[in-house]
């Protein structure tokens, strides 16, 4: 994958991430859709599907209720597949993907908080001219896209350099340990689904 393709990959990740909250919510951003979609660029469809399924199962117990920001499935799939493309085994790439997704949710919370600081000004401008709402929506989308793109590039650079530095130092035994934890994911996820369907009220 040449650098142009990596940039395209990052842009698609940022676009897909918009679907999580900011626009559409057509579930393009759920793991089982994002994983295979991104893997079309990295070239390993089965890895994309597996990472997608595992991501969705792993985060199945956290829902975006109220102000809760679940870890991003798009970021997790994006980082995992990017690292896998650079030769990192999928079990280790997924570990970095999960860490990046958690880090992204904290960063996202912070950016949303800072965005709230301008709310009074925005409201004033909308009251003065209702057409400003459309402009504000476009600007917010652009802002969310660029912020995600920047955060993803930073996270990808950090994760890739760390994983590639770590990889030669990892023993065969450590690789087995990562593989064991990796195959635990679907069982952990499927079991948590049973509990998540439990009725709290009739």
């Amino acid at each position, binding site marked *: 994958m040449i650098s142009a393709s990596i940039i395209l990959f990052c842009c698609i990740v940022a676009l897909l991430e918009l679907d999580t909250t900011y626009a559409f919510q057509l*579930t393009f951003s759920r793991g089982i859709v994002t994983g*295979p979609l991104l893997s079309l660029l990295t070239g390993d469809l089965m890895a994309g599907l*597996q990472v997608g399924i595992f991501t969705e199962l792993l985060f199945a117990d956290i829902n975006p*209720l109220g102000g809760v920001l679940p870890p991003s499935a798009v970021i997790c799939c994006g980082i995992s597949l990017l690292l896998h493309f650079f030769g990192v085994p999928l079990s280790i790439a997924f570990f970095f993907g999960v860490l990046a997704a958690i880090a992204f949710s904290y960063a996202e919370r912070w950016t949303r908080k800072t965005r709230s600081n301008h709310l009074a000004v925005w409201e004033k401008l909308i009251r*003065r001219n209702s057409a400003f709402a459309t402009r504000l929506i476009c600007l917010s989308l652009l802002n969310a896209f660029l912020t995600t793109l920047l955060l993803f590039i930073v996270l990808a650079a950090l994760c890739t350099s760390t994983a590639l530095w770590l990889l030669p130092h990892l023993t065969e035994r450590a690789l087995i*340990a990562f593989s064991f934890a990796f195959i*635990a994911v*679907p069982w952990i996820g499927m079991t948590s689904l049973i509990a*998540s369907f439990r009725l709290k009220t009739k």
Partner: protein
Amino acid sequence: MNFKTHFQLFLRSFFLQTGWNFVKYQNIGLTFVMIPFLKECYKNKSKELPSALTRYLETFNTHPVMASFCFGALARQEKNIVANSAKEKAIEKGEWEAIKRTLSITTASIGDRLFWGALKPLTLLLALFIWLFLDVSFLETTPSLPDHVAYIVSGIVAAFVTFNAVALCVRWIGISLGFNCEPSTCFGLIRFNWNQTIYYAKRIGVFLAIGMLLFGAYHFLKDFDSFTDIQFIARLILISAFVLCSLIARKLRIPNMYLYLAAVLIFNIIILF
């Protein structure tokens, strides 16, 4: 409400959460969605539009799909505000506030339980069943590509289409029901028995999730000829341990992701010795 306005509200409803903020949540999005309708309402009273916009810019937070009921109901009440005399306007505005507050809470509760709590995991299970039936071996550490790429696509399409068919239907119908139905019918909300739907969806979900776990275990173990095979026993013990750990974690309210990170750490420590 004419088709054009209905369609505009429907399209704009996809951007309800674009201006999401921690202070007033979806207030910017709600205003953006309702602007075409408000412009139509206040065509001859443009001086009153900023005051109407102020009301829409107050706190609003609900489920993005179920919000369509709120759009319809608020549009209906807005018509009453515009049609009434100045004296009655204050009462109508008070009612408008009450509708916004109560309906947003109700729709949020229904939407969260139906879409995030039932439909999303159900469509995930649907896709997983399709893949396992088609022998797509995603449970192995190094899965091989199935005979046809269509096998992979079929699961994705099934989950995507099922979720969006329901979500888009609710988005579209919710606007017209909210607008046309009486407040006594909770703006069309009680036309559907949401609680029963959620109840049955969750009951089906429990059975499917247990079935998935068993079917997955069968797929993970089916290639062994003998029950005494050491690899078979090792895999069985591993599955049982993971399931047990997950159940304990749920009891202790530990999210899956932390359980996974703990598993990475524990396996590394075990293997070190």
